């Protein structure tokens, strides 16, 4: 039964990818940026589910179950970060990329700062942080697969990888974006449906009953710092700041460049606030912070806690629904990893291969390199995840997010600050990156802060200071990246 349903699900993905291949224009712009034709509704699903990985089913509710409700501050920060990207940076990045036919955000910055060296550094840095992150998704699915079917973890992981490769290889950005509507709908109905079902069955008094039960059995779960004393005010604040830096996630930034027109930037935040912030992200929050501890208290051990929702569903709901939920988790994993995978392959083909070795390559070659590199990236990321699975969970919060943040100052300054210079961008980015690596090797260098805090401050200060002490960008660059963009955006 499980195998048949999952095969049908795989077939649906295959058909979607084949359709995308059939209708694509076979140009680099079409494969990598969906021909810059994504409208606001597709963009919303595209971005929401590019962000909502299997972490929203495993890691997030598991952490809430262990440490109480304050972890939601990461979500509040992230929602504001994504909205800020679309309100403040998005229109300019979209306009300059459209005017100059740029395909990758790294390409935009290398042109803005007139620095191939910056292109190389940013490409390698972003790949180093995004590639292991991709591998976490199939591995997470593999664990769910094992729990439901009894098959080894690698079977579920390979199944997910196969879906990923088919979707991205054939479909490109357009089908990854459209596919996220289908995948997101499966995931949203699975997680919301399971929540409603479990509440109806075990908590006739609804969420109030869940909260009252916890008030009696484990009241520390209803407040900060939580049962283990983790969420002190400074940690809660730091968690929100880390969330705010979501504007710098490269697979989200590239989404901006696929927009059809500038009106998207007017409407998109509305969907993010209402459907993302108020609705979607509160579902796993309610699951992990209220319902799971009320229905199944006393679970210990990180792996068991991470699987708490799946355990409850498997134990108390019908088998066919458990399969549907697993399908939802696969959908969440694929929707995120596909965007990350495509972003990585764009960086490899456009920024590294074409940028440094084959500047005059035809579109068909760029697409071929992107397809080949995505296979390399997926094999590498899965290999890293299998080789060292325990370190991967830490990699996400302690390494990936601080790593992504290191191109933040150069990105923001490059788009908004005329005075930002190549020397400032290079110095700030390199200093932040070296500090991050050194601190990860020798933790006291972070002074008991989250890795992102001291590294981003050093990066930002150096970017601004060095920019002030070095010659300003040329008039040509200022005109191309500011005056022309202003005129283009101001036009009706």
């Amino acid at each position: 039964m499980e195998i048949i349903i999952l095969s049908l699900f795989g077939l649906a993905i295959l058909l979607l990818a084949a359709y995308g291949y059939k209708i694509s224009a076979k140009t680099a712009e079409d494969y990598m940026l969906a021909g810059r034709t994504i409208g606001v509704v597709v963009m919303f699903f595209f971005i929401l589910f590019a962000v909502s990985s299997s972490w929203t089913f495993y890691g997030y509710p598991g952490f809430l179950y262990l440490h109480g409700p304050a972890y939601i501050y990461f979500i509040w920060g992230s929602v504001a970060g994504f909205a800020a990207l679309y309100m403040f940076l998005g229109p300019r990045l979209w306009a300059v990329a459209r005017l100059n036919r740029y395909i990758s955000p790294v390409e935009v910055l290398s042109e803005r700062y007139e620095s191939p060296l910056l292109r190389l550094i940013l490409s390698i840095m972003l790949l180093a942080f995004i590639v292991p992150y991709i591998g976490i998704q199939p591995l997470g699915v593999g664990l769910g697969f094992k729990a439901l079917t009894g098959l080894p973890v690698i079977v579920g992981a390979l199944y997910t990888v196969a879906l990923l490769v088919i979707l991205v290889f054939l479909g490109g950005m357009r089908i990854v974006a459209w596919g996220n509507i289908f995948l997101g709908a499966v995931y949203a109905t699975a997680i919301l449906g399971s929540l409603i079902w479990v509440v109806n069955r075990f908590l006739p008094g609804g969420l109030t009953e869940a909260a009252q039960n916890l008030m009696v059995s484990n009241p520390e779960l209803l407040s900060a710092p939580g049962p283990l004393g983790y969420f002190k005010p400074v940690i809660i604040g730091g968690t929100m700041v880390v969330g705010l830096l979501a504007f710098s996630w490269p697979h989200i930034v590239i989404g901006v460049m696929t927009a059809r027109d500038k009106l998207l930037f007017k409407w998109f935040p509305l969907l993010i606030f209402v459907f993302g912030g108020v609705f979607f992200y509160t579902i796993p929050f309610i699951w992990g912070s209220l319902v799971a501890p009320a229905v199944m208290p006393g679970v210990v051990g990180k792996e068991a806690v991470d699987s708490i929702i799946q355990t409850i569903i498997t134990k108390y709901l019908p088998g066919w629904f458990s399969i549907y939920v697993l399908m939802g988790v696969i959908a969440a994993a694929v929707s995120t990893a596909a965007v990350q995978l495509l972003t990585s392959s764009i960086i490899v083909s456009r920024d590294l291969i074409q940028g440094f070795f084959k500047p005059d390559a035809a579109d068909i070659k760029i697409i071929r390199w992107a397809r080949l590199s995505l296979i390399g990236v997926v094999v590498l990321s899965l290999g890293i995840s299998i080789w060292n699975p325990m370190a991967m969970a830490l990699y996400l919060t302690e390494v990936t997010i601080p790593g992504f943040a290191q191109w933040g100052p150069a990105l923001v300054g490059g788009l908004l600050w005329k005075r930002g210079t190549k020397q400032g961008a290079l110095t700030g980015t390199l200093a932040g990156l070296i500090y991050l690596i050194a601190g990860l090797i020798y933790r006291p260098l972070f002074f008991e802060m989250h890795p992102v805090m001291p590294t981003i401050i050093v990066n930002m200060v150096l970017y601004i200071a060095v920019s002030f002490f070095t010659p300003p960008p040329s008039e040509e660059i200022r005109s191309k990246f500011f005056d022309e963009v202003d005129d283009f955006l101001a036009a009706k």
Partner: protein
Amino acid sequence: MREILKHTPGRIFLIILFLSVVGMLFVPRYFTSKVLVFGWMTLPLAAGLIFIFVWLVAYLIYFFKYWPYR
């Protein structure tokens, strides 16, 4: 964002957003209280919903009435 900084409504918009972030960083000291809004909503959830509501209202007013590229 450059266009937002160039006029008064934009600057007011940014100040409101900034103050709401500061407020969010200030209120966690009260999260030790086990107060439940509507009988089930914990304080970090309630604070975040208010925060999102402030951003939503500020965004709606600014982007639909004052944003130069609207």
